[in-house]
């Protein structure tokens, strides 16, 4: 059973089709240092929102705010149409059942095997062990790591860990996926494999996603490619078209510098932004 079927409010929200994520003048700081200042943006249903910006700009903090792992000092955050500040802890845990998150350093449980890591959410929901096994194999096949099922995180390479992390995030069939620098620290070939997986997941499930990246080529690959299920590979969108569901948000020093489409970003007149994407 999917989490959506268990929560009628989620099904009702999806039928309405409002913004999946909504930030209104959100600010947060740590020990007196502001990290995000008056950040406002929306992420529509089915949209792929790419977060760009220099390191230390508050992108990972923004991602944790969406998932309720941090609480803003000021402003309002709505996820699936509900204000996070009005939700109690149990409701936030229920909400997280609809969100999959891939952490910057994978954050796999190092004392659990790949199988137990991926199955974690389903085991917490007390799903039948046979169904868990089937679904674990299904998602590991999706990320191309079926053979690593018995291994422990310490035995995996950085790229493999990132793929297990993606498998763990998508096993609950979430409506919203958060990728925090999924290609960070990886070599170009492994990064391309990970981005191909992100495109595959986007085109197969149609889930809304937020993705942080430091590699512009990854961002533009997401905007210009699609996944061909018959050929089982990623390919450029024909006629040099651009995926209309891909939008960009650029942060610098905690402020939103840009919020718009791929074409708007590539044709920007802002000198700082031009230099940044050059």
């Amino acid at each position: 059973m999917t989490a959506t079927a268990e929560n009628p409010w989620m099904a009702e929200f999806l039928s309405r089709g409002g913004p999946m994520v909504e930030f209104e003048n959100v600010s947060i700081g740590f020990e007196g240092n502001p990290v995000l200042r008056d950040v406002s943006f929306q992420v529509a249903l089915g949209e792929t929102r790419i977060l760009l910006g220099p390191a230390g700009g508050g992108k990972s903090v923004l991602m944790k705010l969406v998932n309720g792992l941090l609480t803003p000092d000021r402003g309002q955050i709505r996820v699936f149409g509900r204000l996070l500040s009005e939700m109690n802890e149990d409701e936030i845990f229920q909400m997280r059942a609809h969100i999959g998150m891939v952490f910057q350093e994978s954050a796999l449980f190092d004392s659990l095997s790949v199988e137990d890591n991926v199955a974690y959410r389903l085991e917490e929901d007390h799903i039948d062990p046979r169904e868990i096994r089937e679904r674990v194999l299904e998602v590991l096949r999706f990320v191309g790591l079926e053979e690593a099922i018995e291994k422990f995180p310490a035995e995996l390479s950085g790229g493999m860990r990132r793929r297990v992390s993606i498998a763990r995030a998508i096993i609950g069939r979430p409506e919203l996926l958060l990728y925090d620098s999924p290609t960070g620290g990886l070599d170009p070939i492994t990064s391309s494999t990970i981005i191909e997986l992100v495109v595959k997941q986007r085109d197969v499930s149609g889930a809304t996603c937020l993705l942080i990246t430091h590699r512009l080529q990854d961002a533009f690959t997401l905007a210009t490619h699609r996944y061909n299920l018959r050929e089982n590979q990623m390919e450029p969108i024909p006629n040099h078209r651009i995926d209309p569901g891909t939008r960009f948000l650029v942060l610098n020093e905690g402020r939103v510098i840009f919020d718009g489409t791929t074409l708007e970003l590539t044709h920007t007149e802002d000198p700082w932004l031009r230099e940044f994407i050059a």
Partner: protein
Amino acid sequence: MRIFSPEAYAKSLVASVQEYSLLCARAVANIFSRPRYMADIYTQMDSIGAGSLPIVVLTGFFTGCVLALQSAVNLKVFGAVNMTGELVTLAMIKELGPVLTGLMISGRNTSGMASEIGSMNVTEQLDAMRALGTDPIRKLVTPRLVATVFMVFFLTIISDACGIGGGAFVAVYMLKLNAGQFFHTGYMALEHGDIVEGLVKPLFSGFIIATIGCYYGLRTTGGTRGVGQATTQAVVSSSVLIILVDFLVTQLMIGIFGR
């Protein structure tokens, strides 16, 4: 150079006490609501209880041995060597058994809890756990709390028995005392209040060991160095608190039972 601010220090101290109190309240409240992680409780019981058994047995036994030797030397001056059993039994059951067991388990398990949870914290595994819909306090702290309180209670009883056994060993084989007399004087000296005192103390020690270990683990920052610092601070705080609470409980028991 940063100037030391007494106000900021006082505020951080109050905030730490508040955080610790909230953690304890939530860890206890979780016992009475679902989901309960029974498998984690049994795993922790095995790790804390069975794992600590050798150090508790050895510490208890040799403490009893030393106590018998030392007390016999002084009691001999007054011609009261036959009271060795009474002294060893009372000291082990009322004081040394509970405190030494608490300190030994604190050294072994508070550090283990702080470093394990601290490592999970700095590698974002706790955030991942929250993101996957699990409350880390319910999954990690409550099972450790239940297991530690339960196991420290029984380990203290084992430590008391080993201590009395060690005292008897020295009394019989080194001081050439009568074994029957050793146990009889010890048994006759014990009162109901002494047993209650000896069994109440480990409940507090167990609570302190688990909550302090988990508290320092959960607030760990600063990578592997931070994990090391959290582990050291956890063991120091837990040991000091165990002795402090031992003093308060002893005072309370003297107030209740008059001895």
